[in-house]
């Protein structure tokens, strides 16, 4: 390995910064507010749920399909670590208006449509809407709502904000009046220059943060620090710091590793790199498995989907992670890598017990392979939560079924999240279905089998009784949907 680099270098609005004195737990929000006095970005919750701290982060993205391009994504600055910012462009609300005070169309529309009352959520909402404005000049109400899933407003009831978003989309000033558009090419070149080809190591006191330049570097770092905390999107690890004040030592930031960002599509299926965000995976997953796309739209808010990774959702082993149940029923496998080589195992076997996964010291999740759905197989994933969007599941059911020519169940896989200590298959349900005619009677019998598969807990998200009843009903929903009945509420026909 070459000589390690010793600073995090990025562009903040118009200024290039190089930070060599950064703690692994330093957040972007504290950096902006305390060190730069950019106080337009607010702290509302410090856990990535309210969006008051939303900023845009530009990065060079190359998912293997579209070539390299500069994309700007909304993120929660409160749980974004400074250590994860190398070779990015951070854009805050202060950069949006022109130097003479003229507001950007997004800001002006928020004023004209009375989109602010107390104003505290407003800079974050402006930044989320600006992210939409950059990529969509005719957004539907569904698209606007999706953009705002990660932004809470307690005053307005959102209606004027949605109207403002619609109006702003029509306002297209010359490129020179938009701060991102006018600098896009220059920033692309600057970011290329800021990329490190070497592992970045920064020590602050007893703490250490490490940013490997590539997967080989990551394997080497983990070999040296087998118990290091691997940080991908930080949508979970961020809260360890802001809420539990846990140390991360060393923290290894992997979000910039290009090899882990790849999505490979073949006839056999999809290979998704462990660093691929939900947003980046959305197109490929929803093309291959439409029900998966609908589910991703209900994971976190836009900011969390822009940061959070499917690899992280698997690696942290949460019993209520939303992607493992559908991945299990699709037959996904996970590839782990270390300095000593690679191994691949079925995803289902990766989850051993609550909080315990089959990842050995020095290993990292490299990719997830999701096989193509056999022709004729039906697949669905249903999330149930107290609030429709940006909520953690009370339970999540994933179902897959293949029927033979006599309409009997030839193959089936059923898995749930929120029903046990790990994402877990419902093997008794599967046994009750297999070989049986695909009928309401069969489904009723299989519903009863759920009680031998799970003994769900009662907590603030749901009671045990509700979880069990709703789980049974989700199986019925899966059946009824296969008969063509309308069984799901849909706020909008299409999200475009």
């Amino acid at each position, binding site marked *: 390995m070459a000589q390690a680099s010793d600073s995090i270098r990025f562009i903040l609005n118009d200024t290039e910064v190089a930070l060599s004195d950064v703690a692994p737990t330093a957040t972007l929000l504290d950096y902006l507010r305390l060190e730069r*006095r950019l*106080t*337009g*970005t607010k*702290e*509302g*919750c*410090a*856990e990535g*749920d309210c969006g*008051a701290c939303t900023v845009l982060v530009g990065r060079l993205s190359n998912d293997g399909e579209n070539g390299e391009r500069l994309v700007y994504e909304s993120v929660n600055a409160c749980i974004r670590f400074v250590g994860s910012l190398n070779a990015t462009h951070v854009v805050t*609300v*202060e950069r949006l208006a022109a130097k003479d005070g003229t507001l950007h169309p997004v*800001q002006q529309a*928020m*004023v*004209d449509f*009375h989109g*602010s*009352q*107390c*104003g*505290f*959520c*407003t*800079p974050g909402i*402006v930044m989320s809407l600006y992210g939409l404005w950059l990529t969509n000049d005719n957004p539907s109400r569904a698209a606007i*709502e999706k953009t*705002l899933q990660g*932004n809470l407003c*307690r*005053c*307005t*009831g*959102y*209606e004027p904000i949605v109207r403002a978003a619609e109006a702003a989309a029509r306002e297209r000033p010359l490129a020179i009046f938009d701060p991102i558009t006018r600098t896009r090419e220059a920033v692309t070149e600057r970011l290329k220059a800021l990329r490190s080809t070497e592992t970045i190591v920064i020590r602050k006191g007893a703490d250490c943060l490490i940013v490997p330049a590539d997967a080989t570097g990551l394997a080497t770092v983990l070999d040296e620090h087998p118990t290091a905390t691997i940080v991908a999107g930080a949508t979970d690890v961020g809260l360890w710091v*802001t*809420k539990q*004040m846990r140390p991360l030592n060393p923290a290894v930031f992997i979000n910039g590793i290009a090899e882990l960002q790849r999505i490979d599509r073949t006839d056999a299926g999809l290979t998704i790199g462990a660093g691929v965000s939900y947003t980046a995976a959305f197109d490929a997953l929803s093309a291959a498995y439409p029900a998966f796309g609908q589910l991703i739209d209900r994971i976190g808010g836009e900011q969390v989907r822009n940061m959070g990774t499917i690899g992280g959702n698997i690696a942290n082993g949460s019993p209520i992670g939303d992607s493992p149940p559908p991945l299990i029923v699709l037959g996904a496998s996970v590839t782990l890598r270390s300095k000593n080589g690679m191994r691949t195992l079925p995803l289902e076997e990766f989850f051993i017990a609550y909080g315990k996964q089959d990842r050995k010291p020095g290993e990292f999740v490299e990719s997830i392979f999701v096989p193509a759905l056999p022709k004729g197989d039906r697949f669905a994933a249903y999330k149930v*939560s*107290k*609030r*429709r*969007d*940006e909520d953690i599941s*009370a339970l999540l059911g994933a179902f897959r079924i293949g029927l033979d020519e006599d309409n009997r169940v030839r193959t089936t896989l059923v898995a749930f999240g929120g029903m046990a200590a790990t994402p877990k298959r419902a093997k008794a349900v599967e046994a009750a279905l297999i070989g049986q005619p695909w009928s309401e009677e069969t489904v009723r019998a299989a519903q009863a089998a759920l009680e031998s598969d799970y003994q769900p807990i009662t907590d*603030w*998200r*749901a009671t045990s*009784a*509700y979880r069990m*009843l*709703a789980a049974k009903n*989700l199986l019925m*929903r899966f059946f009824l949907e296969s008969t063509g*009945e*309308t*069984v799901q*509420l849909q*706020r909008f026909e299409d999200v475009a």
Partner: protein
Amino acid sequence: MDKSTFEEQTTIAGPMHTRLRHDSAHKHVAGTADYIDDMPEPAGTLHGALGLTDRAHAEILDMDLSAVAALPGVVCVLTASDMPHSNDISPSHLHDEPVLADGRVQFHGQPAFAVIAETRDIARRAARRAKITYRDLPHLIDVADAMAQGGELVTQPLTLQRGDADGELERAPRRLKGQMRIGGQEHFYLEGHIALAIPGEDDEMTVWSSTQHPSEIQHMVAHVLGVPSNAVTVNVRRMGGGFGGKETQGNQFAALAAVAARKLRRAVKFRPDRDDDMMATGKRHDFLVDYDVGFDDDGRIHAVHANYAARCGYSSDLSGPVTDRALFHADSSYFYPHVKLTSQPLKTNTVSNTAYRGFGGPQGMVAAERIIEEIGYALGKDPLDIRRLNFYGEKGSGRDITPYHQKIEDNIIHRIVGELEVSADYRARRAAIIDFNKSSRVIRKGIALTPVKFGISFTMTAFNQAGALVHIYQDGSVHLNHGGTEMGQGLYTKVAQILADSFQIDIDRVKITATTTGKVPNTSATAASSGSDLNGMAAFDAARQIKDRLVAFAAERWQTTAEHVTFVANHVKIGEELVPFPDFIRQAYTARIQLSAAGFYRTPKIHWDRATGRGTPFYYFAYGAAVSEVSIDTLTGEYLVDRVDVLHDVGRSLNPAIDLGQIEGGFVQGMGWLTTEELWWDEKGRLRTHAPSTYKIPLASDRPKIFNVRLAEWSENAEKTIGRSKAVGEPPFMLPISVLEALSMAVASVADYRECPRLDTPATPERILMAVERLRGI
């Protein structure tokens, strides 16, 4: 003299009754509106964090804070004994609310110490290092448990009665009893609590506090420090939301910051983390309402007897007036010929509940609408027909007396409901929904129209006063200050409009300045929807005083009479001469006319005798109604709000844009209270929904898919309020009771509407599904 301006301009920018954007809108979107945490900190500012206890009820045997103090960067640790004069910040003056727990923990999360450190991060880390030894005591968390265990109260209950309720219940042709559980609510102001205390000379202390009640912060800080009120100045330019959560709950942060600042002679800032804020500050009261109603076969109510038990938490705070207001709104819009209502403000080992938009009124009203709904289902009638039969009658109808013996003299509910029923096409849509439900297996729909009538005034009559301070400087620019606080509701904008209108000058000549106890003393909380009624009138009074002097001056100088002096667009017209306002002011200054005035207002007519339960506590009523249509999924209990139509009364609107914003925003916030916002305590008495990850307020995608909101433009306040407007802060919060009842109807469809589903709140998907299951079993 510049003639170009006065020849062209005949009207001013920003008078009363016009749509005007929020005065800070530009700063909000640019990120340049400063909240307290955004202000430059004085050199050497220290930061505080609360040390929270983790028992619901316990004796503190030992508190070992050595590890807290030992963390590098910690400057000092405060406990109850460090309060210089008093450890008491009870806003009810019942001495039941310590700044820091003193020997006894009364709720999980109650602060027992505070850490002051060089950085906020160090303070937070240090606060977790305490070793506290407890002796556990039995705890009561739930309303029902508190009732069962003897029902200790935090304050005096209230009884309202008229006629012979129990006798008429016996005699009524039909009678039914029921119970409704109504959930509480976290305010979730986006800006959490914060206080910055800056010590001055002698005993002086300046406090910046995110508070709706600067005068109370002033009094509490003075009391805890043991200094007179004149030593303490409290400032607030704006809050990032309040909703009642910053009426009393900022006291502890301000007091602790001030105590530390006094002790250390350095500025001290307290900004609790969101989770600490949600655990350590009060919320909306949850209620358990037991009702007994007698009625006839038409659905006309003969008598109501009901009890309103509330989870008040460990101390009284504002629970007395909150539970009182629940009783004041237990009639909703309905005449109860015989009535007896009792409150039961119960003590529990939970955080002390407090003010929240509506202040108990929503809980009283939602139970009243449940009673109507019950009668509707019992008789197989549309609840709207039951409502109509029971609405208060016109003045003098004999059906116009409330349970507190106030006569309703401004009743417009019949017209509001009538117009909305037609414009929302309620009847046809209801028929179509009943039809839809017959053939839809999984998805069911519901629709409901519910009314709002909300009494305006503080029920504590003394609070219905306000002051304002207005200066005109020599250049004709105007400085405005008043006792109200800005929390997003647009109060500053409205009061500035009133001044612009009074002087007939463009609103940008009026400088709105931060609320401060140093300019306007002895203010009431900006609460009870009263902000613009009270402060608007006080500012109007200040302007009137200055104008009177200016008119007298002009009459003398121009040798004319007062009636020939008028204020017209940016000018003063004296006889036939138009003098630009700044020129006129300069002349008045030169003539030694006082260009400053302190305005004052007290609400007329009102009085209230709590002991007898009789009086006229409200100056007037605000009205409104909403029709909501919903869909539910009977497999999971999930739902969508498909369409909402609102017609709401704000009298003659001071600013229709701001008022519409209050209505839309109030609706969605009230809908959250009734649907997805659930406070959940575990068996140890720990609140487990203490962050936005677990406590779910509405998102953009939860708001009504179609949302038609109109003002009742024909309405004018019958009383002489500022511009004949009406208060708007709280009343719209109760419009989404229609959402709850529509959900209920969708549930009821599974049993062919034979049974009232008796949905408790919040009506989470779980409650909906469980109600569906219950009704399917009938």
